[in-house]
Structures are given as structure tokens and as C-alpha cells.
């Protein structure tokens, strides 16, 4: 079994910031695991600007923001990067099992930082009645298809939820030539940033319906239309569409921590197991990556301090 001072799971903004700050705080034996074939995590598909205004005092796109950390990590031989590495099991003894193409590896870590990000909430979690045709995507999946794979998932779009990813995708679909019919939000205000409402919806005259929900979804093989209901009055209308995007929030992805029987503690980045830390969106859902970087750097420092105290 491989032995490491520090293993960081996830090389998105949180994992990269944590690994760099742990190194800068004195940790010289770090393994950074990433399941994708690139560093950067979700930033790679967030091609729009608006990142780094606080941390770098510059307006960067997601890939540019990620690049700053990737370039830094690549100059540090003390941080070993392992791509296409998927963590599947974690124990209280800090033994982590991960899969790489064609092999399974085990590593025993003195300290661990989990930076595994979020999953998107799905249609099932918001209970949209109706059929189950093709054409229903989570907003982040549609973002990946367009921005990384060059595929346009549909031409006539209805977006459920006015969180930032949904707003960003309304603009992205519009620019790519699709027609975004509406954004449907059950709350009375958006959970997204004001600049996104202005630059992603108002710029393109895309209607945003507050206190509305999709009450039924129609379509046999492919989505054909949705019925929209005003939750206060019960009045209804229909929108034809071939695609429905679900943008109704994110859930921290903490299966590995739970598997080890460990709980996330109240204090930032801490868990019930000393030496096991959690940071970024897997600790809590952040609205700005700048704060992910700031807080994850603290996780790196905390891990370094823990390792110093062990000696």
C-alpha cells in the first residue's frame, strides 16, 4: 500500500487551492487525485467571465481562473497529480481506494482533504409530474455538452429554476441560436446573482416567471410542451419546447466521508475525524469561486498544522 502525508481528492478550484496551500505551509508529500483527465474541475466548462473579481481583482473566465492554479501546481514536484483517478472507498483509518484505468490502488494517508464538489439536483427531486421523455437535462450537463463537447442539446428551451447555472445557460443557448422560452422560478426572487439576471435574461428579453412552477410535462419520445402554473393564483399556461433544463440547486457530494462513518463538523473545513478535512462545494455550496479558493487554502493550512502536530 502506498503511503502519503496528504491526499487531496478532487482537483477543481477547492482541491487545487488546498494542495497548494498545504505545500506552502510545509507539506512536501502530496497526492492530488482527479477523476477527469484534466485539472480544473467544473471551471473548465464555465467559460463565461465573472470569476476572480475578489481573489485576483480581475474579471476572468472559469478556464482562466483554473489555469492560474494549474500552472502553479505543475511547477511543484511535491504535489503528485494523478488524473483519471476515481476514489471509491474511504475508511476511518484514512485508507483510500481509487480506480485508475486498468487498476485499483490503495493509499494510506496521514491527512486527507476531500474536495469532491457537488452534484446537481434532478427533476425527481423537484417532483415535476408528467411523462419521462428525452430532452430533460440538468443545467450543468447541458453546459458540459455545449462548452466541452460542442453539442447543442435542443432548440426550444424552458429552464426550471433561476439559479446562476440556469441563468448562464439561458444566455449560452440564446447565443448558440436556440430560443429560450422562459425561466420558471417557484420562489419570489432569484437565487442567482443580479448581474446574471441582467446580462443573461434581460439582455435577450427572456421572460422570468416568479412564483411559477411546471405543473406538467408532455411528450412521448421527446419533450413537446410544459404546463406552467402560478402557485398563488392557480392560473396556467403552456409553452412548447423540445428541451427542459433543470437548475434547482446543488448538493454537496460527500459519500466517501459518510462511507467512513465521519460527519462534517460545524467549523469550516472540519470533520468529526481529526486529520480529515473537507473544503469547497463539498463542504457547503458557494456562490463565488473566489470564496472557495480562500476557504480551501485554510483547509490546506489546517492539514499542514495537523501533520506538524503528529510529529
Amino acid at each position, binding site marked *: 500500500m502506498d503511503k502519503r502525508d496528504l491526499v487531496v481528492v478532487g482537483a477543481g478550484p477547492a482541491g487545487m487551492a488546498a494542495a497548494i496551500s498545504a505545500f506552502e505551509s510545509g507539506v512536501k508529500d502530496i497526492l492530488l487525485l482527479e477523476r477527469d483527465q484534466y485539472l480544473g474541475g467544473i471551471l473548465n466548462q464555465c*467559460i463565461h467571465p465573472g470569476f476572480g473579481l475578489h481573489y485576483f481583482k480581475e474579471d476572468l473566465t472559469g*478556464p*482562466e481562473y483554473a*489555469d492560474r492554479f494549474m500552472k502553479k501546481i505543475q511547477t511543484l514536484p511535491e504535489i503528485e497529480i494523478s488524473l483519471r483517478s476515481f476514489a471509491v472507498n474511504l475508511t476511518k483509518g484514512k485508507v483510500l481506494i481509487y480506480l485508475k484505468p486498468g487498476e485499483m490502488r490503495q493509499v494510506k494517508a496521514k491527512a486527507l482533504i476531500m474536495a469532491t464538489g457537488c452534484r446537481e439536483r434532478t427533476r425527481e427531486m423537484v417532483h415535476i409530474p408528467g411523462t419521462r421523455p428525452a430532452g430533460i437535462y440538468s443545467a450543468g450537463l447541458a453546459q458540459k455538452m455545449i*462548452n466541452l463537447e460542442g453539442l447543442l442539446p435542443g432548440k426550444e428551451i424552458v429552464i426550471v429554476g433561476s439559479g446562476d447555472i440556469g441563468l448562464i445557460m439561458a444566455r449560452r443557448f440564446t447565443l448558440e441560436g436556440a430560443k429560450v422560452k422562459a425561466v420558471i422560478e417557484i420562489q419570489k426572487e432569484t437565487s442567482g*446573482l443580479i448581474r446574471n439576471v*441582467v*446580462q443573461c435574461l*434581460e439582455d435577450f428579453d427572456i421572460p422570468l416567471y416568479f412564483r411559477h412552477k411546471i405543473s406538467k410535462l408532455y411528450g412521448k419520445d421527446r419533450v413537446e410542451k410544459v404546463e406552467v402554473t402560478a402557485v398563488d393564483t392557480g392560473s396556467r399556461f403552456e409553452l412548447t419546447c423540445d428541451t427542459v433544463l433543470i437548475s434547482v440547486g446543488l448538493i454537496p457530494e460527500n459519500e466517501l466521508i459518510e462511507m467512513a462513518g465521519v460527519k462534517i463538523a460545524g467549523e469550516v473545513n472540519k470533520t468529526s475525524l481529526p486529520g480529515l478535512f473537507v473544503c469547497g462545494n463539498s463542504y457547503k455550496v458557494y456562490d463565488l469561486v473566489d470564496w472557495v479558493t480562500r476557504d480551501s487554502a485554510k483547509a490546506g493550512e489546517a492539514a499542514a498544522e495537523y501533520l506538524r502536530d503528529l510529529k
Partner: protein
Amino acid sequence: MKKKITCIDCPQGCQLEVDVENGYVVGLSGNKCPKGEVYAKQEIENPMRILASTVLTRALNIKMVPVRTSRPIPKSKLFEAIEEIKKIRLSRPVHVGDVIAPNFLGLGVDLISTRDAI
């Protein structure tokens, strides 16, 4: 003509009511600070946006290279710009910040790569 816009200079998001005549701002209310005035003037008289999109590659390690304009361009040019971006095929390696199309659409801004592609 009265027009309602949201100032996005800071997260307060003041609701501005702007008096517009012939495309120019002649009156303003609702702003809590002087930045609102600058924002309203720019936004009504010449709104500008950074455009971000992707360019299709040939024989590089990623299929789509993300790109953006080096500075904001007029909002009215967004769709023309995106059509132009769709025509580009990139087969040479690029690094973050490399120019993909200089003086893009004659607008005095460059189209730049926002990710390495090799």
C-alpha cells in the same frame, strides 16, 4: 421615455429609473451612489459586453477551445460576433491569452483563448 434598469456595478443592484431621449440619458433616479450614473449612461447609450464562446478545434487535445473578447464589445454586435466565432477552425496549439483572431470584426478587440490546447 422612462426606462427601468438594474445597476450591476455592485451587488446592491439599485433599480434605476432612467429618462431617455433620442438614445441619451437626460434624467436618473433610484441610484444610491454616483456609480449608478456612470452605469446608466454606459448601459443606455452604448451597452458593452464581454463575449465568451467556444471554437471548434482540429487535431488538438480538446474538442472545443473556450474563447472570449479581450475587452467588452457593443451588445448589438454579440450575434454577429458569435456567427464569426462559429466559422473558426483551430488547428494550431494555443495557450491561455493567445490571440485567435486579432482586431476581431474590426472592433479593436482581440478574440483570445482562455484555455491551453495542445
